[in-house]
């Protein structure tokens, strides 16, 4: 059977149309290159639309004391000093410009009294820093970028008569493979979701901006697109992933009804006085206050309750501990059998606040529970549990160029790139991360293309890629992809979840290897026309690689830090702080090796109070005072 293949030639391929991909495409087009934007769903639907809270940038509109150095410090603290310092530095320095630029493209952020962009407080940020539009900041960001692309296309149309002469969006097209010739990127291969027809893109540079990996887990706030395609494509193309053990679990996702499992319940519910209880009616968070926080958090209900009216003379309620602490506490309660039958705990605001106040202060939450769960949170408790929210790990890149280490022509930006957030991301830092590094990736890719010659994709590479796409249809009597996906999610959920132990992780690695064999035997019913079973079979392969990489990195890292908690190694280790886990793929399995984390240069080191650094660094590191 010979299948006709659609061919396209571009200067740069951007895989992913979220904030990062679109920003990269704009930059590459403005550098005068021809760009293809490829995405799995319709244009403007990428996962970025779901971001609510805001985009962190130290514009200092609300508090003048804010600047990039404060932002940098907050980001490093949040990541528990495992961040790549240079990425955090670039991000802190460039975020304000990236936000202001959006305004010139038509974005309408909420305003301060003086008419500047308003900024709000968020966990871990010292000053009000998040530019926002109500609770739909991600939508504003993606729509603005989408409209910027359209604006550029209109300019092209005026000049060349063809709107798509320089930027073309290939929506609902899945890339299954990155092609290389002579060790360098030469193009990508994929299929149209609509009809299953195969497409070959020839291009010397590719920017990966494929977002997160949430769908590898059973409970997640991510959409179906979060299958870690970019992570997997990069691995398969010979690039590395860094620190894949770090996943952010948000403590409060909805757990019941099943339809809404994982959907985010904003932190403000607890901020407004929401109380966590188990099925015995016990307010359990008092049991889980770590020693380091004892002086800041109330150890009895009376004091915790007083805090809401008098914050100066009382300690905060323990419900407001950092995200990872609360996630772990909920997890322990459920494991101890004190969770609800659906595996969550209760979060209740109805006892503290009147119905009107709840509807006024938490309108979208009231709406969300009322519409989706049939729960009136002014009268009843919500059922909540941790939900997989964000992956800190990702493609190992050069900070300044976003170039993937080891593969000339390959770039990665946004959630699929690693390093920037260290072991834990601060809320709001992702949206500006997308813009800062999306732009840098686009810029660097453009420079690369201008200096590198053109490449050609060989016929044999095309044939191999094509065969892989056909495979699921040629088999009969094999496995059902939906079932395998469920099994994978059970494994990650139970064994690679929030709290990990060596035995469980080892178990997971064995099970994942078994699953890999079965995935090789997937069969798909129906034909190629918009066939979700067929689509899932590819996503599944990617998710399996992610799961393997996460499990293998997690078993190695013998400490607990940020988004990685080991029951058998509950403390942070200063030695492990200096180490990145690097995943690579040899064609049959993921291998993880260790690599030293770049050392903070002196000028950045000096931004911190040495006493603070003591918690994270060895005496030798402190004595050295950063590199020169």
């Amino acid at each position, binding site marked *: 059977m010979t299948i006709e293949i659609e061919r396209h030639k571009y200067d740069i391929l951007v895989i992913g149309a979220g904030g990062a991909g679109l920003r990269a495409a704009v930059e590459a087009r403005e550098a005068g290159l021809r760009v293809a934007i490829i995405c799995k769903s319709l244009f403007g639907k990428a996962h970025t*639309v779901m971001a609510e809270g805001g985009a962190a940038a130290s514009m200092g509109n609300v508090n003048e004391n804010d600047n990039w150095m404060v932002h940098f410090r907050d980001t490093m603290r949040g990541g528990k000093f495992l961040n790549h310092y240079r990425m955090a530095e670039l991000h802190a320095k460039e975020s304000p410009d990236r936000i202001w630029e959006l305004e010139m493209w038509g974005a309408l952020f909420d305003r301060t009294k003086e008419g500047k962009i308003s900024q709000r407080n968020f966990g871990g940020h010292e000053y009000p820093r998040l530019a926002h539009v109500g609770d739909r900041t991600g939508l504003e960001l993606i729509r603005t970028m989408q409209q910027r692309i359209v604006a550029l296309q209109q300019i092209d149309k005026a000049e060349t008569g063809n709107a798509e002469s320089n930027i073309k969006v290939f929506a609902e097209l899945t890339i299954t493979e990155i092609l290389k010739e002579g060790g360098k990127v030469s193009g990508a291969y994929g299929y149209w979701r609509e009809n299953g027809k195969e497409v070959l893109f020839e291009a010397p540079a590719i920017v990966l901006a494929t977002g997160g990996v949430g769908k590898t887990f059973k409970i997640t706030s991510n959409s179906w697109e979060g299958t870690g395609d970019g992570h997997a494509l990069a691995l398969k193309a010979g690039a590395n992933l860094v620190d894949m053990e770090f996943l952010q679990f948000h403590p409060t996702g909805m757990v019941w009804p099943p339809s809404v499992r994982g959907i985010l319940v904003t932190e403000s519910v607890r901020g407004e006085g929401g109380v966590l209880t188990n099925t015995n009616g016990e307010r359990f968070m008092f049991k889980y206050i770590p020693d380091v926080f004892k002086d800041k958090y109330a150890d009895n209900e009376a004091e915790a309750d007083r805090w809401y009216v008098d914050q100066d003379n009382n300690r905060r309620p323990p419900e407001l501990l950092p995200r990872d602490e609360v996630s772990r506490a909920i997890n322990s309660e459920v494991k101890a059998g004190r969770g609800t039958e659906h595996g969550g705990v209760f979060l209740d605001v109805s006892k503290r606040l009147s119905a009107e106040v709840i509807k006024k202060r938490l309108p979208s939450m009231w709406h969300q529970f009322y519409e989706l769960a049939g729960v009136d949170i002014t009268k009843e408790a919500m059922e909540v549990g941790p939900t997989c929210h964000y992956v800190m790990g990702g493609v190992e890149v050069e900070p300044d160029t976003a170039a993937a280490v080891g593969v000339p022509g390959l770039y990665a930006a946004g959630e699929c790139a690693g390093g920037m957030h260290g072991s834990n991301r601060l809320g709001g830092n992702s949206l500006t991360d997308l813009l800062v590094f999306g732009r840098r990736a686009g810029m660097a890719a453009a420079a690369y293309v201008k200096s590198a010659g053109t490449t050609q994709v060989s016929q044999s590479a095309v044939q191999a890629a094509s065969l892989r796409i056909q495979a699921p249809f040629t088999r009969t009597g094999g496995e059902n992809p939906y079932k395998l996906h469920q099994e994978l999610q059970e494994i990650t959920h139970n064994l690679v979840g929030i709290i990990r132990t060596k035995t469980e992780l080892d178990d997971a690695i064995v099970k994942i290897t078994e699953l890999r064999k079965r995935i090789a035997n997937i069969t798909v019913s129906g034909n190629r026309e918009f066939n979700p079973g067929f689509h899932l079979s590819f996503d599944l392969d990617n998710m399996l690689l992610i799961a393997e990489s996460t499990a293998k990195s997690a078993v190695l890292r013998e400490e607990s830090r940020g988004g990685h908690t080991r029951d058998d190694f509950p403390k942070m280790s200063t030695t492990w702080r200096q180490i990145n886990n690097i995943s690579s793929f040899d064609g049959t399995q993921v291998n993880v090796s260790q690599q030293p984390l770049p050392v903070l240069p002196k000028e950045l080191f000096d931004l911190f109070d040495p006493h603070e650094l003591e918690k994270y660094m060895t005496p030798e590191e402190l004595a050295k005072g950063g590199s020169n």
Partner: protein
Amino acid sequence: MARKLNLRIWRGNKESGALQNVIVEANEGEVVLDVIHRVQAEQLNDLAVRWNCKAGKCGSCSMEINGKPRLACMTQVSSFPEGEEITITPLRAFPVIKDLVTDVSFNYKKAMEIPSFQPPVGMKPGEPRMAQVDVERSQEFRKCIECFLCQDTCHVIRDHEENKSSFAGPRFFIRIAELDMHPLDILRNRKKKAQEEHGLGMCNITKCCTEVCPEHIRITDNAIIPMKERVVDEKYDPLRWLGSKIRKREGIL
């Protein structure tokens, strides 16, 4: 508390298609998209459906449920009486691709026809100062999640294929209104274009777009009618026309 649902799902493609009866289990609290996914996983593996966020934020899962344009992820199964058959079809204003998936490229074409935002020449990033009250009207329209339910329900194109070339549709009327009310936009011919090129005059303000908008944007009241009034200012009101001529001549404007 599971219940059995009788679904009638439209299956087919460009050439042909029909409603197919499916019996599926639904659990407490589930939305229509959940049961479609169950059908997909257990019975019809290749049933085509678009979705992304499952939280009413991306506007992907638009379809028609019992004849009404809706988001499947925001339609509770419990809103249908026990035992009632639920009919699910693709959007009926756009060409069908397969099963519940339609070709919505019409909307992207229309988006391309609306002149983009144009800030004042020479304005630099970081300079804009805008009052909250001045951005609020446009912000309402920027809530749009591009589900295209309003486009689907608008009879101007739903019932008249031939109007598609001359009618931008409610989604793009709010886009035009957003820009015309944007404090920084300097293009001044948006009203005229709205009437002459985008088909604003074809809208007979029957408000179906407003009825179906999942974001509760008051499309007709806050965008279409104000734009119609602005068009009258510019094109049909002899007094204002005269006034603006005089002011222009005297250099007041």
